[in-house]
């Protein structure tokens, strides 16, 4: 029996749900033990997902592996279908990794911790589901399931009682509006591609062929409806209004999940169910989406430059970075797409680290406000060094991970149109400006400790704690390793992306 016949993807999806149920059910076990259990499950999940990645590690596997296809309603072709190519593999590993980090960092949750950890695990499981669906309907189901844990975590565990409900509602309504359009498009797709009396198929590979035979107009409408869901999820300007408040209000482990992996589901959707499913329409609308991506890059950077609260700045910076990822995807060439997937991985490491570092700082200072901090380097030099490395990674310092992604993305955009790259690099310059404004604002200048809110601080004013070293050192090492040798990611992706794009080009022109 081939190793890839084992239903590993299903295990990866449902293990966290089982864990979540366990956490809720084991009411009498002390919270500390349960947290260890949650961490153990997340770590085990991460380990399992590595199996999939190593399966693709030699970079030669083409197409989908680890396929599962269980007939659900037999004559109707409605199947529970999973599978992973090397793009999914990296994103699944990213998801399980970020989930692990989030669960670890949620150790000190004070309110209803068991339920919170359960939601975290459930969110991770559903996101793995999104990345491993090869059936449109299955994709849709996980896409919607993802909302539920996120909604509860923002709405019930959020920072400010008055605001969190608003943030959660805005988040859900925005997302729902987008995904309903996607659902309608899926139904329309089923109706329009099923031959009279034939069996409908929602299988990604089959339906790609069918899409190519649709009239051009239909393809474009369908693409736009799908894009509506993704553009909100990523998000891109001007569909981002839910994002800053959701990131700021959500407890940090949730923000880590939202910014680290959930935002990638939107980008992944654009790639798999936008560019690869509707290649002709995608290239027709590429200028529009590149425009939105560039708008997000610049708008997010400017907003980050103007904002005052640390977490909000990071949220806007994330908006700007996601703009780069979408720009890469709609460069519609190997470098752009490869860079985009690489950047999803990189951003999924750097951004959680930044949010966690910000939380660690806020726990000591009791404030999130940039103007109340200053000159803290003398007080906590090690934490200053951590912030420096993370800030540099985030602004794309060559040699650290995010540069490699930006380099390929901008290179792809440059080949698509030099103007895209020239506007894009303005975002890089602004990133240096706002990131250094934040870094220097907190750590340099005359020491300013009188404004810190000692009452609100939850940690004693000491430098990095051992548990924090344990969390951040691996992240920093990853940032450096992926910066020095991004080939670890791009090498695995290369064949897959080349194949997908070749097929897409054939489908787009073959009609």
């Amino acid at each position, binding site marked *: 029996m081939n190793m890839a016949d084992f239903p590993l993807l299903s295990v990866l999806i449902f293990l966290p749900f089982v864990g979540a149920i366990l956490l809720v059910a084991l009411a009498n076990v002390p919270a500390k033990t349960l947290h260890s259990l949650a961490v153990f499950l997340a770590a085990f999940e991460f380990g399992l997902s590595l199996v999939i990645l190593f399966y693709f590690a030699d970079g030669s596997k083409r197409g989908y592996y680890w396929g599962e296809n269980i007939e659900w309603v037999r004559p109707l072709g409605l199947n529970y279908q999973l599978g992973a190519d090397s793009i999914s593999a990296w994103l699944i590993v990213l998801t399980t990794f970020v989930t692990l980090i989030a669960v670890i960092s949620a150790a000190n949750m004070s309110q209803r911790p068991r339920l919170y950890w359960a939601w975290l695990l459930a969110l991770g499981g559903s996101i793995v589901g999104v990345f491993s669906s090869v059936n449109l309907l299955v994709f849709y189901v996980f896409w919607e399931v993802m909302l539920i844990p996120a909604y509860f975590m923002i709405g019930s565990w959020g920072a400010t009682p008055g605001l969190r*409900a608003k943030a959660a509602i805005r988040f859900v309504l925005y997302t729902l509006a987008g995904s*309903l359009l996607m659902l309608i498009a899926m139904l329309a797709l089923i109706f329009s591609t099923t031959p009279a009396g034939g069996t409908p198929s929602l299988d990604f590979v089959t339906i790609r062929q069918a899409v190519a035979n649709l009239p051009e107009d239909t393809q474009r409408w369908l693409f736009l409806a799908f894009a509506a869901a993704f553009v909100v999820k990523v998000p891109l300007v001007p569909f981002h209004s839910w994002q800053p408040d959701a990131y700021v209000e959500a407890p940090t482990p949730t923000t880590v999940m939202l910014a680290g992996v959930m935002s990638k589901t939107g980008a992944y959707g654009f790639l798999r169910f936008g560019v690869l499913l509707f290649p002709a329409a995608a290239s027709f609308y590429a200028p529009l989406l590149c425009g939105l991506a560039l708008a997000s890059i610049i708008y997010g950077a400017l907003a980050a430059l*103007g904002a005052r609260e640390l977490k909000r700045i990071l949220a806007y910076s994330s908006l700007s970075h996601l703009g780069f990822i979408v720009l890469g995807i709609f460069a519609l060439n190997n470098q752009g797409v490869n860079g985009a997937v690489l950047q999803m991985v990189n951003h999924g490491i750097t951004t959680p680290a930044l949010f966690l570092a910000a939380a660690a700082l806020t726990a000591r200072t009791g404030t999130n406000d940039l103007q109340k901090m200053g000159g803290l380097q003398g007080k906590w030099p090690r934490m200053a060094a951590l912030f420096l490395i993370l800030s540099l990674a985030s602004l794309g310092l*060559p040699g650290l991970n995010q540069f490699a992604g930006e380099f*390929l993305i901008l290179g792809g955009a440059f080949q698509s149109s030099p103007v895209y790259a020239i506007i894009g690099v303005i975002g890089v310059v602004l990133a240096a400006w706002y990131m250094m404004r934040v870094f*220097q604002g907190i750590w340099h200048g005359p020491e300013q400790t009188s404004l810190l809110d000692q009452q609100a601080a939850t940690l004693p004013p000491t430098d990095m704690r051992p548990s924090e070293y344990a969390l951040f050192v691996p992240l920093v090492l990853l940032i450096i390793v992926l910066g020095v040798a991004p080939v670890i990611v791009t090498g695995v*992706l290369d064949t897959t992306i080349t194949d997908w794009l070749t097929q897409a080009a054939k489908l787009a022109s073959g009609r």
Partner: protein
Amino acid sequence: MPEAIGLVLLLPFLGFLINALFGNRLSKAASAWVACGAVGLAFVAAVVMALTPNWPNGAALTYDWTLSGSWKISFGLLADPLSAWMCLIITGVGFLIHVYSIGYMSHEPDFRRYFAYLNLFVTAMLLLVTSDNFVGLLIGWANVGLASFLLIGFYTERPSAVAAARKAIVINTIGDVGLILGIFTIITNTGSLTYREALTSGNIASGDWRNWAALFLFIACAAKSAQIPLQTWLPDAMEGPTPVSALIHAATMVTAGVYLVVRAHTIFGASEWAAWFIPIIGALTAFYAATCALAQTDLKRVLAYSTISQLGYMFMAAGVGAYEASMFHLLTHAFFKALLFLSAGLVIHALAGEQDMRNMGGLRREGATRFAAISFIIGALAISGIPIFSGFFSKEAILGSFPLLGGDYVLNASQQAAGVPVWFLALIGWVGVVTAFITAFYMFRAYFLTFEGKTRFEGHPHANPQSMTVPVGVLAVLTTVGGFLAFEGGWNTLETWFAPIKDEVAQNGPNVWRSIETNRFDVVGLVIGVGAGVAGIALAYIIYMARPVRVKSTATALATMADSPKPVLVENPKMYAAKATQSRRAAEIGYIDRERSNPGPGVNAFLRSGLNTFLLYGWGFDLLYNLLIVWPGKGTASLVAHWFDRGVEQAVDSGLGGSTAGASKAARRTETGFVRNYALGILLGAVAILIYVAVIGLQR
């Protein structure tokens, strides 16, 4: 043994790691030993590497960095005459400055952090020059910028240092993205980013892309080497410790732009645009910065503007294909400018941090600073181009590349293609001559103000340790004899040295390389060049020594300002300017107020003032950029973050939950009921699908 190139890079990196990770467990002496030892051994390795009869064909230590479709980018280290030349300068001068730092920084509590940064800088700079491809170059390029940022802002508690550091990293990032765009242009047109492939590609022979590549790359050069219009960060960079100014902002990092032009000379040489814009920008910057140096009152800022000016000189030469002259001046400049900075450092250290020349004077007569006076004057003579000193040879080599008096000047291929006339090159050359005159003048103005005339400082200068004076002595010797390095057999040494570079890449592009030998200068040119220097020194002597102008110390100047009612005099002028009005006055007389982040004058003060202020504040570039970019940028940013984005959010909220006032009520209602609605939504969706499924099923 060219294989030693790996060690050259590895040793400073190890030094950095040790000081960065374990610095807090090391004593100051151990930390200094590690840092200096690493760079010293790297210098030995560089010598070993340079002592090779023939250079290797390929790069050493290669690995694939990234792979994406047709883009396969691999890294390696390239040992060739150009990289060896740069390695020797970086590690050699770098070692001397490391040793000097031990004494200069000895009072600093953050001693280990300083040496960690310094070793990081050396590592990045070595990566920049040893990389065999443009992406490796970019990584070094950006990381020297990072090290520069960290060291400019080393005194983190000082607002002026923090502001200067941020300015430096933002402007350097502009350069980095220019380099990125240049890289894209190169790889899309040659298919490779490795020098050996890209620079000798057949596509070099033709195409408009060469102009764009040259333009994009030059943005990077201008930012890193502080050329107009990206020069404004370098004078402010003087906020860093003085040894840093000597190493990074004079001898090595800022010359990276010149290195890139020479390294990628097949592209620059093949570009018709570059045949125009490089000499123009070089000459303009050389002249601009020299005039600015005339009015500076801060000793280090004189040297900073002087560095910008000398870099302009190097670009002038590189712009007409005189790459050897350019690299030669890069070397001698590294000697004499490091010497000048370190001499200035001796003074600053002796006066416990004073940098304003108005608060100096007569220092030659003090025992503690007599040595500094001698070493400074050697540096000043070299930069003025006085014979036997190294600057004389390299400056004459540059001026000799221009047809000062017309004559039988042979235009090179790209100049012919671009239609560059001889009179234009003569004009550029004469700008160089005028600059040489101004240079000699401001340098001796600085010397006379600092070391001669009336004593204007208080207290007694204290003596400098040997760790500081010995490196200065070595540099003084090198400054004196350094020019002869290239003199053996009439310039042949340099030509032989760089011959592999010239030959290797001249296959496809136009041959634009202008050897020093082909410009063997005549007596007339020599008289003009030396004459300009002598005249400048003479004029400075007349103005500042023979009929000494009255120079007021800053405290006196502030106290006696025309419109000042009665400022409170504090003993230390640095205590001044706690209040905004006082700070403004300080800005008007050019006193750098380190308690505040922006030392420049406002628009009104600038418009009201005369030529002196115009030059003092670098022709008002800072003000212009503030008006055009910084202030509008900040304004837009705060508009976006505080007004626009929040406004949209509120509009959305009121759209979702009725009025804004009712939003929270609505929120409370939905917080309990919403999820049921949502579940209902999913259910409806599922039902719709099932109905569809049923319909299809019935059709069968």
